[in-house]
């Protein structure tokens, strides 16, 4: 019996790209392109069931087994450290985790550094390695405004092109880690749906290799 694979897709631009790759690699699903309010889309022929979730929640759905596989940015995986298999680097959604500050910023090492970020764990680990004392300000969006309003000294955030930073008179000062989208799998699903998941992994991998 062929088993359906539940796939958690990250809502947004990255998710559209991911869906495109999946469909071209042989996991098409016409239902997902219809205009309606449905949340779950399946195609029995190709054996996939897709659903859109908030990008930062993908790893939660996969870790808890509601989704067998999903695509999540390396930033999410580093921040939440979910207990999942990281199978493949899709090499899309490329950007970097970086420290940024107002132009001309001078790091005054006499003081505790105030860091505004959506990624407290990544920031903590990064500065802990340097032995720097920091104060984390956890925000959920519009991080760039924090240093402008002098609420924080620096921000730790994702930088893609740097346009948002430039427009707010900020500049990246240090790269923490490069980021890209990863194919992740629930550890138990990987065992019970091993044939289906490894087949999918192989087809996605082949598609990505030939595309480049």
């Amino acid at each position: 019996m062929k088993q359906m694979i539940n796939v958690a897709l990250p809502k947004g631009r990255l998710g559209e790209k991911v869906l495109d790759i999946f469909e071209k690699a042989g996991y098409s699903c016409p239902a997902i392109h219809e205009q309606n309010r449905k949340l779950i889309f399946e195609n029995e022929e190709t054996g996939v069931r897709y659903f859109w979730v908030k990008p930062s929640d993908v790893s939660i759905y996969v870790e808890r087994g509601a989704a067998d596989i999903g695509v999540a940015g390396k930033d999410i995986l580093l921040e939440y450290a979910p207990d999942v298999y990281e199978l493949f680097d899709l090499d899309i959604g490329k950007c970097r985790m970086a420290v940024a500050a107002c132009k001309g910023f001078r790091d005054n090492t006499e003081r505790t550094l105030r860091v505004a970020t959506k990624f407290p764990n990544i920031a903590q680990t990064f500065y802990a390695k340097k032995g720097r004392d920091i104060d984390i300000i956890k925000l959920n969006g519009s991080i760039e405004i924090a240093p402008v309003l002098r609420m924080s000294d620096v921000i730790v955030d994702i930088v893609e092109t740097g346009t948002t930073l430039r427009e707010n008179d900020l500049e990246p000062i240090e790269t923490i880690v490069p980021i890209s989208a990863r194919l992740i799998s629930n550890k138990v699903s990987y065992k019970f749906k091993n044939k289906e998941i490894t087949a999918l992994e192989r087809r996605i991998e082949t598609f990505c290799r030939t595309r480049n």
Partner: protein
Amino acid sequence: MSSKIGFANEEAAVMELSRMYRQFGFKHFKMSKFEEYDLYAQNKDFLLGSSVITFTDTNGSLMALKPDVTLSIVKGSNDAFTEPEKVYYSENVYRVDKGTHRFKEIMQLGLECIGEVGAYETSEVILLAKKSLDAVCCRNILDISHMGFLLGLIEDENLSDKHRARLIECIRSKNTLEMEKLCASYGIGYETACALKTLTGIYGSFEKCVDELRAISRNETTDSAVAELESVYSFLKSCGCADGVNLDFSIVSDINYYNGVIFHGFIDGVPNAVLSGGRYDNLMRKFGKRSGAVGFAVYLDQLERMMRSDEPYDVDVLLLYSSDEQLPTLAQTVMSLTQQGKSVRAQRYDAGSVKYRTLMKINGTEVETVETND
């Protein structure tokens, strides 16, 4: 979609599994509820950094509610080589829940074999692990691995603890790409790097994968690890319990405690391991003991959600009556229904909170069936 669990509830599971462990000569070990906190302070890694509930005893010493049973059994074991201690336990332990970050009570069932642990003892414990899974649910998988193989592969590489931990992390998350990068940056030789990459990817039935494993075995340590895995597998096979036994090196346990064969058990539909165990001679050494040890624990809390989901009704019969004068009829009806093996709930009104299969009502002295939901 998910398969059914073979037990109605936790208590039934404990009874059935305990019966099986007794059959194999394991003795029940009833533990005290408390343990000196010091034991956990010294072995924090074993509990994966989990917090412990502490309190001060009447004599002023700091005590803890048990977060784990194995440590207490190891601590109390006598280091005699005359005969192995074979014990099983079913105890409540207290740990922090990963999701809510609060303490919760978990029923833990497990067994340990301590003493001179040879091929038979190891194989028998793994057999019981597999049989426990079989008893819980027919769609199960027992993944086995060997700590000695991984450590043997990298024993000649001069790696710091931190680098070794990062390699292990890659294997744990089956991250082949990162493994390649790390090998390059740590200056690990080509052959070892290839072997590590293969090891990260290995997954599947034992028979299919063991050849791959043999092909990347490079020295005496790894050879003996393969031989040990093979002996365990052939033992399971001769007992007719080799279905769903897979080789998987992503189930790495802490190298400070475990050595030798390790294993995790999974049930279709439960997103985490429901059973875990292995050979833990290194833990024995930490307590200054020379003998070997092997054991496992079953996490019954993981099964809870699947056990109770399939019962659509609270009672078979909801029996309504209106006055105390109906007591004789009521008694008679309840007795006759329960003797038929049905569950009955008698009350005056139906407020809609009880889900019943059949609704009955006593009118005067007559019993009538009002509604049937089947």
